[in-house]
């Protein structure tokens, strides 16, 4: 019994140190964001702010940086891409899992092999395509790329669909349901847990995506959360307390989502990595 307690103490100690190390990089950020200009210049970055409710920097960051645009654009891109990604992923999975047809193996292989292509570098050539489609400097560039290159979701849907008994489709078919009715009224509702997983992990990934909006949407009015925050670096480099506030504004939605959806997020991360 005593030995067990020792283990517990050591475990708590190690975990506490690791948790502190995880939080530590964010602490100077929080402190700085709550300090006035003078206070910021005259105090060390590990000194807590005088007034914990001084939200002046947050107001400046919100109104003077382009964060408003950023959240608006990210919101639009995120919603449209998620709906699209779910439609595409479930359709592909439905066709592959529920039908036997010539060329099925080839199709499956085509999706499989695509996961090996490193996404960032193909932008060298993808850029030309987006340009030819006249999507450069429009939100559609990000939307169509998020939708069109998301293969992990197809896998998540495929995996989940395999566990939905085929007898359900059969009996519906005998009752006279067409393939679309089966897809829309039977399969889609049963896929709800998988859809939740995709929404969560893809939603987080799209919220965090930096390079695609950076490359394809240079127009400041089309800034997303990531690029709008990135653009703080130049103009605000003399007032880091504002940059810190902006950074926290961007972190806040992630923190909220994490606190509310912790369990789903853990499940989603495992499902997304282990294709």
């Amino acid at each position, binding site marked *: 019994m005593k030995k067990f307690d020792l283990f517990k103490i050591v475990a708590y100690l190690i975990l506490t140190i690791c948790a502190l190390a995880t939080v530590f990089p964010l602490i100077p950020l929080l402190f700085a964001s709550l300090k006035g200009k003078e206070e910021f210049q005259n105090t060390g*970055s590990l000194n807590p702010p005088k007034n914990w409710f001084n939200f002046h920097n947050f107001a400046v960051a919100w109104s003077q940086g382009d964060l408003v645009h950023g959240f608006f654009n990210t919101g639009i891109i995120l919603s449209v891409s998620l709906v699209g990604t779910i439609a*595409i992923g479930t359709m592909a999975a439905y066709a592959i899992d529920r039908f036997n047809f010539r060329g099925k193996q080839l199709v499956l292989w085509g999706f499989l092999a695509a996961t090996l292509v490193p996404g960032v570098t193909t932008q060298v050539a993808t850029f030309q395509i987006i340009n030819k489609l006249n999507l450069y400097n429009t939100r559609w560039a990000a939307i169509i790329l998020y939708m*069109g290159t998301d293969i992990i979701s197809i896998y998540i849907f495929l995996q989940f669909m395999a566990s939905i008994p085929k007898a359900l489709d059969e009996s519906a078919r005998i009752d006279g349901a067409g393939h679309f009715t089966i897809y829309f009224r039977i399969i889609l509702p049963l896929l709800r847990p998988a859809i939740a997983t995709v929404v969560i992990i893809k939603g987080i990934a799209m919220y965090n995506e930096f390079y695609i909006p950076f490359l394809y949407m240079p127009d400041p009015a089309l800034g997303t959360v990531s690029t709008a925050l990135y653009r703080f670096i130049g103009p605000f480099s003399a007032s880091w307390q504002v940059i810190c506030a902006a*950074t926290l504004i961007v972190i806040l939605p992630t923190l909220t989502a994490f606190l509310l959806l912790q369990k789903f997020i853990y499940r989603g991360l495992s499902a997304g*990595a282990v294709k």
Partner: protein
Amino acid sequence: MFKEKTKRQFVPWLYLLLPIGLLALFTYLPVINMFWYSTTEWDGFDPHKKFVGFHNYVKIVKNPEIFHSLFNSLYYFGGAVIQISLALFLATVLSYRFRGSNIFKGFLVFPYLLNSVAVSLAFLYLYKGGGGLDLLVKHLGLGRFLTLWLGNPHIVNFSLAGVSVWRYMGLNLVLFLGAIQSINPELFEAAQLDRANRWHQFRYIILPGIKRITALSVILAVSGSIGVFEIPYIMLNGSNGTTTFVIQTLKTAFVLNQVGLASALAVTLLGIVLVVTFVQRKIFKDEGVDLV
């Protein structure tokens, strides 16, 4: 009956039309074009692409900067090894459920979900001269180790790899924990009856149970460290010797407007990733690992 059968052949393509169309347009067409562009000298605008054969590849092999940026991947790979070991250790500790273990897990996983620009800015501020890290180091009485974390060219890549460990450890932790929790609990009960100690439980139950996920983590670590991009790009724009292969490729394409050469770089990267994946699949084949 025959008609029904042909219909069943035809219907799936209705559902596949859009997914396959997008796959072809945004994954396979770029790859094919990349090969094509890589044999040309082209700025990305000129309607005429000048064919130069393998000239771009010769340029790559002769350019020492390329090898330097590939070498930089090693810092991140080193970081990934630390990160995987740490995650394995912490996952083992956390798998003995006790009060508060979920809170600790939350703390450790959270960084993985954060926006890359936010992470980069947080660490730019932390690493600043006289910033949070300097103060911490001084408080710990290690003042003589103070340096410019991002300015010292011998240190900067370690600092960046550190950011990467901080950011990605949580993912490994979740994967390991998931694998440990899916081990049959009866095994642990049997071990307890046999008076096996914690080390034995780790060595003979946990370790064999997470083989597959460890292999996956290593594969992700290798391709991840070759593909490092966001942190060095956002924090330092690849300056001070922190360029990575991906940064170099993208700068060649979109800053220097040498799309031909950039495509050759991209093809090279694709080749490296494919070879690495292939070799790893060979190695892990006996382990019953079934990946991509």
